[in-house]
């Protein structure tokens, strides 16, 4: 009599269905409650031409068939923690909502996705307060799409009834031969396989007029962007009309040009320039085969780069982010081109004379302190190439046993004048490090490696220090070296030495381009196979956390970690590349298919 409610097998089957249902809920509820309308991109565009934002979600049911999703789900189905999370009563409403749709429409979830939203969902956001919103849900079965509004409204009605609210009946209205309905601020109708919704009556009537040909279909403005051919597997496309979107209430003033303060210029100058010069920005998510690709584009840039932002991106001939450093056991590597000295030299092109003046004074004042150099000197000596790496931990440099091994990391900055940097900047830094070493009970050691002087700070290992501190600190031996025109700062000496080897290796690789165009301004790579291997490195820490903080048994935690490892390894490697090209500026993220 007192037995657990579900068998494990039934639980897994139930929860995989739940996941599918969850998706439906997100798609259908989101669309329904937003209350807007329909159009078909294969036919003249129905969305208003003055849209500030347009988005399309194409064939959402195909997302569930994507190789990566299927592989991920297959792994997650084995996870008890995941099953438990899905069985949580917080998901009751979603589960019950899906059940409502299934019972009312008489078909299972996958059929609902195909029949009711199989072609996709289109959304536009326009101007005004509140902004004009139009939504088109385009299915494949006109009869079921026709029932979708009533089923959705009955669901909403039952939900709000529990809170003591009675949903009013929709008021029917007519527009030419169409009957449409008003419910509060929402207007909707079904035309063939399309469910059209809008938050303004005129917007809905406009879509119907364009559908019937009473007025010309939209052939200009942002919606036409969605008529452009798309790559296979494109699942999501979003377009923003930048001039219009800057007029929308709530657009952050910090991203407008001319700037009102220097902070955003320093942190995001290149992006401000793109927003300033580009009429639109588009984002695409493509799920072709087993790969995932995302692409952010600022097309058709107008005019030259905004003065004062030069140097933030690689925007001039023959400059680019340095090649990625790829030492052994690499998890993450990034390389950015960012010439802060060039930006500083063009600072007067930024229309903030008072703020720039204050900044100049603040930076110059650092020379008055004990450092003996100013931040401006530091800027001048620092080159435009910034690189950062994270690797798995290698053998420990300490005798103290460390159960929780953490990743190593390092930053590499090129120097315009290595000797000047060593003479001017290094001495005060060494003084500061000396104080830190004393307070933290560290020992400083200088060693030679391939003609480079490598300075290592190690924690002492005497019994009292080991007993009274968290041993996690013995993962680190802060190290730096100034060599080969670079400043290398790392969490371990071994990594710094590896990076010196990497710089030598890259030095010997001939430059393969004679192009005068700018190269990529940013490169990144995440190696998920190494990240998965990191799960082994931090195994003890992860198991302990899962057991003590999440209540898993040790055996369960071990299994969950094994699944996590599989899940992460299944992702392969993620690559990011950004920069200017003939079409404008692009930011690409790619997760190629993994060899099974």
């Amino acid at each position: 009599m007192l037995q657990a409610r579900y068998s494990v097998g039934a639980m897994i089957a139930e929860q995989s269905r739940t996941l599918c249902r969850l998706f439906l809920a997100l798609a259908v509820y989101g669309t329904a409650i937003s209350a807007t309308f329909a159009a078909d991109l294969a036919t003249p565009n129905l969305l208003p031409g003055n849209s500030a934002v347009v988005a399309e979600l194409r064939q959402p049911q195909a997302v569930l068939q994507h190789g990566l999703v299927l592989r991920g789900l297959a792994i997650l189905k084995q996870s008890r923690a995941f099953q438990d999370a899905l069985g949580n009563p917080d998901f009751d409403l979603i589960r019950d909502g899906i059940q409502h749709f299934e019972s009312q429409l008489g078909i299972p979830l996958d059929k609902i996705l195909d029949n009711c939203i199989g072609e996709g969902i289109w959304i536009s956001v326009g101007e005004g307060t509140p902004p004009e919103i139009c939504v088109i849900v385009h299915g494949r079965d006109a009869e079921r799409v026709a029932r979708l509004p009533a089923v959705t409204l009955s669901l909403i009605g039952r939900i709000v009834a529990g809170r003591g609210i009675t949903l009013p009946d929709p008021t029917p209205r007519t527009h030419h031969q169409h009957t449409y309905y008003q419910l509060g601020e929402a207007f909707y109708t079904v035309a063939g396989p399309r469910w059209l919704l809008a938050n303004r009556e005129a917007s809905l009537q406009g879509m119907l007029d364009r559908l019937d040909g009473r007025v010309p279909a939209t052939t200009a403005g942002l919606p036409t962007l969605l008529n452009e051919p798309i790559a296979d597997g494109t699942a999501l496309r979003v377009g923003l009309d930048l001039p219009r979107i800057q007029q929308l209430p709530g657009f952050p003033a910090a991203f407008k040009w001319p700037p009102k303060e220097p902070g955003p210029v320093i942190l995001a100058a290149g992006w401000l320039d793109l927003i300033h010069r580009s009429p639109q920005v588009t984002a695409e998510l493509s799920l072709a085969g087993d790969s995932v690709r995302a692409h952010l584009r600022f097309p058709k840039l107008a005019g030259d780069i905004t003065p004062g932002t030069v140097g933030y991106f690689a925007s001039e001939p023959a400059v680019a982010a340095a090649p990625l450093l790829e030492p052994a056991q690499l998890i993450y590597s990034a390389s950015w081109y960012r010439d802060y000295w060039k930006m500083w030299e063009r600072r007067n092109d930024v229309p903030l004379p008072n703020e720039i003046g204050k900044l100049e004074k603040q930076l110059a004042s650092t020379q008055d302190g004990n450092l003996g150099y100013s931040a401006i000197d530091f800027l001048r000596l620092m080159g435009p190439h910034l690189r950062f790496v994270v690797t798995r931990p290698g053998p420990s440099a300490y005798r103290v046993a460390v159960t929780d091994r953490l990743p190593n990391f390092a930053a590499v900055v090129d120097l315009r004048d290595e000797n000047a940097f060593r003479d001017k900047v290094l001495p005060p830094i060494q003084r500061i490090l000396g104080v830190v070493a004393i307070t933290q009970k560290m020992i400083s050691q200088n060693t030679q490696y391939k003609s480079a002087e490598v300075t290592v700070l190690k924690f002492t290992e005497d019994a009292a220090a080991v007993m009274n501190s968290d041993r996690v600190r013995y993962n680190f031996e802060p190290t730096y070296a100034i060599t080969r025109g670079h400043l290398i700062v790392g969490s371990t000496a071994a990594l710094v030495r590896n990076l010196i080897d990497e710089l030598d290796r890259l030095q010997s690789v001939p430059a393969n381009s004679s192009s005068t165009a700018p190269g990529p301004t940013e490169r990144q790579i995440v190696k998920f196979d190494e990240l998965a291997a990191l799960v082994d490195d931090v195994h003890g820490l992860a198991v302990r956390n899962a057991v003590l903080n999440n209540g898993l048994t040790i055996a369960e935690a071990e299994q969950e970690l094994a699944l996590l490892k599989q899940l992460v390894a299944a992702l392969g490697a993620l690559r990011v590349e950004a920069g200017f090209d003939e079409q404008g500026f692009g930011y690409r993220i790619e997760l190629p298919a993994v060899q099974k």
Partner: protein
Amino acid sequence: MSTAEQALRRLRPDVAWTSYFPNPSNLWDDVKVAHLWRRASGGASAEQIERGLKTTPADLIRSLLDGGLGQAAFEAEIAKLREGVLTSNDPQQLKGLWIYRMLHSPHPLQERLALFWHNHFATSNAKVNDLRLMQQQNDTLRQHALGHFDDLLQAMTRDPAMLIWLDSQSNRKGQPNENYGRELFELFGLGVGHYTEQDIKESSRALTGWSVRNGRAHFDPQQHDAGEKTVLGETGNFHAGDIVRICLAQPACADFIVQKLFRYLVSETVTLDPTYITPLADGFRSRNYDIGWLVERMLSSWVFFSPAAIGQRVKSPVDFVVGTVKSLNGAVSPIKLAEFCDQLGQGLFYPPSVKGWEGGERWISSTGLLFRQNLAFELTRGTGLGGRSDPARLLPAGEQLTDEAIARYFTHLFHQQIEEAVLRQITEQIASERGRLQQEFRSARSVEGALARTAAHLALTVPEFQLG
């Protein structure tokens, strides 16, 4: 005389500690099975109670004394966690690790007794300030939990955490510190009234010379007072081990431990007079202070399965959280549970003084009760902390349950027997809740799940649940 006292008096002293056996007028029922699980393990799931009913009392007690299968594997798993916990220097992790043991150990009785000895030899990390030494002491308590008390007392006398806790490091020749000597007699071995101040002074001299070096007990003959001492009537050049031996030779020692263990395992509300103590104390002493024998006698006895014992203890915070999670067959963060125990006044590894936690009615206060009720809600709401202790999972599958059936299921799970009036009240509240839920958009399954959570919470907030 209380009902419990009357129940005890109905048992003759020569029969009281003999083994209970079921008979038509005193059946082996779920009340007794759950009572045994609570005292010996902290709590039990419905499945464990069902299983217990199908076995004999003797077999169930034997299995509890021996522990289940997989003890070595469990210890190996714990060892994997322990080093990380210790190097983290985070006391909450150490507390969490012990709660984890209490929840999952295949030998739960050993954990229950380790907790008893932790309270008996109460040592706080507030002064020791070394997780490694606290864990070492905890392992020693566990190792001897069902072993021989003489071994345990000898081990504690040289335990590094104890040496720091009771200032043995400053107990030197010519400058004796009497802290350990006093507590050895007063709190650990004899009880007040069985020794003199002179005995303490003399025994403290014998205990000189011990300190802690590199995490281990260290004896320095230079610091030891090698002179002659007279302790409890014996005279000689005594060392620490001799003092423990002399203490154990006192008749009061067995009496003292029997009474204290009786209060922990059997009943807080009845006081044993010598006619009841003597049979156990004599047996305990004659078996070289075999704790396992004493525990078995107590758990097997007619007294244990009588109204003198059932429901005659107030659940400590640890009993409350561990027992509730076990009953729910749940999986809850041990660190969180340890935090709740801290907030309720039972911070593991941090007893308030060398006397330990007083327990009994001291565990009950208006704020403490409110806190327990809120904690019961957290554990039964099916999400957040209680995400993996959802009572809805426990209801029989595929059955449309009435309000009364749901109420009965959870009152039975937590109380086994409950007054009809209380059951009726819970049933009415569930019916009212059902009416409210049915106004909302919910499937039948969702409604039933919500009602299960409500019923479980209500059953846990019945005052009798604070007794175990």
